[in-house]
C-alpha cells in the first residue's frame, strides 16, 4: 500500500514560541598559541620543511635526518670520527644547487659571514 504523503502543517509565525538560541559553532582556530599548547602526537613523524627545489624535498629530508643524528650524538660530544652523511649531502646538494640556478636566486659572491666582517665590535 502506498504511503500517503501528508504535508506538514506550517506553523504561523505569530504563534511560534521563542526559539532557543543556537549555541555558537566551535571555532576552528589555527592560531599558533592553541597549536603550541597541544602535546605532540605520539608515534607520528615530525613535520618537515620543503626545499626551494620541489624535487629535492625527499633528499633534503633524508639528509636532515642523518645530519641531526650525527650532530647530536657525535659532533656536539667532541667525536671527530667523521661525517657519515657525505653521500646523502652530495645528492641533496646536486638537486638544490640546480634549483637555485633555475630560480635565479642570487647566492653567489658573498663570503662566509661576509656582511658582518667589517662591523665594529659592539
Amino acid at each position, binding site marked *: 500500500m502506498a504511503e500517503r504523503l501528508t504535508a506538514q502543517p506550517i506553523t504561523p509565525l505569530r504563534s511560534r514560541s521563542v526559539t532557543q538560541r543556537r549555541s555558537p559553532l566551535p571555532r576552528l582556530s589555527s592560531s599558533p598559541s592553541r597549536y603550541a*599548547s597541544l602535546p605532540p602526537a605520539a608515534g607520528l613523524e615530525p613535520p618537515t620543511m*620543503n*626545499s626551494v627545489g620541489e624535487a629535492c624535498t625527499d633528499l633534503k629530508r633524508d639528509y636532515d635526518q642523518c*645530519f641531526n643524528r650525527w650532530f*647530536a650524538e657525535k*659532533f656536539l660530544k667532541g667525536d671527530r670520527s667523521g661525517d657519515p652523511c657525505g653521500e646523502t649531502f652530495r645528492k641533496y646538494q646536486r638537486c638544490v644547487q640546480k634549483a637555485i640556478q633555475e630560480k635565479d636566486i642570487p*647566492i653567489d659572491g658573498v663570503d662566509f659571514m661576509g*656582511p658582518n666582517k667589517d662591523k665594529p665590535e659592539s
Partner: protein
Amino acid sequence: MQNMQLCTPLSRCPLCVVCCWRTGTMVKYFCCAGLLRSSWDQVCIAFWQRYPNPYSNHVLTEDIIFREVTPTNCLKSRRLLTKTSRAPRWMEPYLPKQMASSAYIIEDSIVDPQKKTMTTLTWNISHARLMCVEERCEYQINRDNGSWTEIRREAWISSNIYGLSRAIQEFGLARFKTSVTKTMKGFEYVLSKMQGETPSRSLAETATERARETALAAKEKAKDLASQAQKKQYV
C-alpha cells in the same frame, strides 16, 4: 632589552653597502638579549630543527646550501630560507609592480662545540634596495645558570628609498621586533617537543611581550612618517 639608535653608516649588507656609503643613510640599530631555559647543546640541536613550528608560517622553504667541518672542529653552515614578503598597505604605492611576494634570506652559522658558542648572521638577499636587515646572534651558556642558554641579538636595519627611508626603517624595526618574539616562541616550542613537554609561560615570553608593545608603537610611528612624507609630495 635595550633599544639603541646610531647614526653612523654601519650597514654592510652586500647588496646595499655602496648605496649606503653614497647617500650616507641612517641605520637603525637594535640590540637585545634573550634567555632559553635549555642547555646550549639542546638549543643547538633545536636550531637545526626549528622549522616548521607554529610561529613560522611565514617561512616557506629551508635548505642547507653549504656545510663543512673546519680543521678546528667547528661546523660552518649556510642556510637559504624563503619567507613570505609582507609589505604594509602604505608602502604598496612605492613598490615596483613586479616585486616578488616572497623573500630570500641567507643565514650563516658557526658552531664551536669546544667553546660552546654559536654565532649566526642572517641577511636578506632579495628586496635589498628597499630594505636591508642584518641580524647577528651569539648563543652562549648563561653565566648564572650553566643549564640555560643566553642569546645576544643585534640587528642593523637600513633603507635607501628617497624620502621614505625613515618610515621604512621604522617599519623594518617594528617587524623585526615581532619576528624576535616569534623566533623565541618557536625555539621554546621545539625545545619543549624535544624534551617531551608542553610549552609553558616563561620569562622569555614576558620579555618578548614587552617587545611586542614597543614594536606596535614603532609601527604607528612608521605610519605617521609615511603619511607626512606623502603630504610633503603634494605640497
